[in-house]
């Protein structure tokens, strides 16, 4: 059973630590190969210069990237992540330098 993403944990906002945000991946991104490549690049960036890619001021760890990848592959956990993520509106999608597949972090 998936953990409760909304459980109260001090300093934790469930909408500021979704797997899509950790991976800087759009929830609409498709294609297993493309996603795998994106996650690999993201992991490398965090390994090399995590301080350059903070998430809401927090420096990410590689373990978080790995956990986020597991979560988007698991249907139940991915569904919870979708629930916690704004669905992108294509016409209004701004560009992000770090984002190769979509606007979400």
């Amino acid at each position: 059973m998936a953990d409760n993403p909304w459980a109260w944990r001090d300093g934790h906002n469930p909408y500021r630590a979704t797997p899509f945000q950790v991976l800087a991946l759009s929830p609409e991104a498709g294609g297993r190969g493309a996603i795998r490549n994106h996650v690999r690049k993201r992991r490398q960036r965090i390994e090399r210069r995590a301080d350059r890619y903070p998430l809401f001021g927090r420096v990410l760890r590689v373990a978080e990237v790995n956990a986020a990848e597991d979560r988007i592959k698991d249907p139940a956990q991915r569904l919870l992540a979708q629930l916690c993520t704004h669905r992108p509106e294509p016409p209004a999608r701004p560009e992000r330098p770090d984002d190769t597949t979509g606007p979400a972090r």
Partner: protein
Amino acid sequence: MTAGSELETLAAELERLRAELCALLPAEPESAYAALWQGGEQQPWTRTAIRLWEREDTEDIEVVHHLAIAHHACAYDLEAAGDDAAFGHFERALRYWAALHGEPDFWRRMRERLDAALGVPVPDEVVAETRARLPYQLLEPHLTLAARLRLTDPGRARRHVRLVTGSAFPQATVAEARVGLVRDVLDGVPAAVAEGRFAETVDVLESWLLLDPDSHDLLRALLFTSRSWVERLREEPYATRRMDDLLRRVDALVRPALAPGAAPGGELAKELARHEFLLALRSFGALGTAAPSPDALGSLSEIEQARGRARKAVQHMDRALELYPAMGGDPRYADAAELRGDGLPGFLAWLDAVEAQFLLTAFGIGDRELSRARRLLDAAGAYAAADPGLEEFVRSLESLLSVRRA
């Protein structure tokens, strides 16, 4: 300069100022979604995004989802900062989430997105289970915070409980969440009572009732603890004052929590009935002591006071037997039926007779006093058949009445 040209100059100046002002204001984002971008990151909420989404069609399920996320994210940030504005955003977020929870089309769309993203059809159970768990998961943080803040900030804790009890999720879900909040407390009550930890248990239950004042489970546990304590105290000497204070304290918690006209049922009704019985004994003056004797009354005003207390006791007993008609069959409360059927009516009849005696033995009585004595003796006489002592007393007073009339 003519008045017309002066106006034109002023209008041109006004237009120039407006244009300058517009240039100073940040441009309105092209959409609510775009308004989430702030500080180089896509925020889960911004005030502008919320404002723009609230302007859109809030019947649109996608807009509802955006608003649920934005208000909820805002509420988490505010709650972490101890800001009371969190409650309004929590309330709105839970309302939007409840709408999403009940909307099959939302879950169909989520399922389609999931299938598309994973490239394989996702089993039905995955979506169904997530949907079923959603209300519990969304209510859980409020139960956690209520439990945590119960002693340090009861007002804030109570507001978290209200978010749960006032949420629009299915009633059974809300009830289950509410019980979950106090399950451990309730489970510990029988053992605590058996061990005689009455004061501590009443304190704990009272602190929880301040958070959820009309929880029937908490009320029942409080009434059970209180009457168990009183049952113990009734066997001790000099405990009348303590019982009196306890019953008053418990009554102040229980009475406002029960909606007028809505009769509780089941075990709560039985506990309430026992509480009413103890209140009857307290009113009657028979809690921890022998029942009062009419012989001890030395004036008409004392008789009137005793009558008022006995009538109040009758009201409590009527309520008790209405709530739990079979209470007389409960071995510990076997004297309840006797009190209502015999003890209180008998005492009131004796009071009538004693008052008649006061009137008939007083100096200088007139027709008014004699008429009242007649009515009192009739009232006492109606009960005299059940009490030979009273019957004899009434007979002697009848003789006295005849003498006084003569």
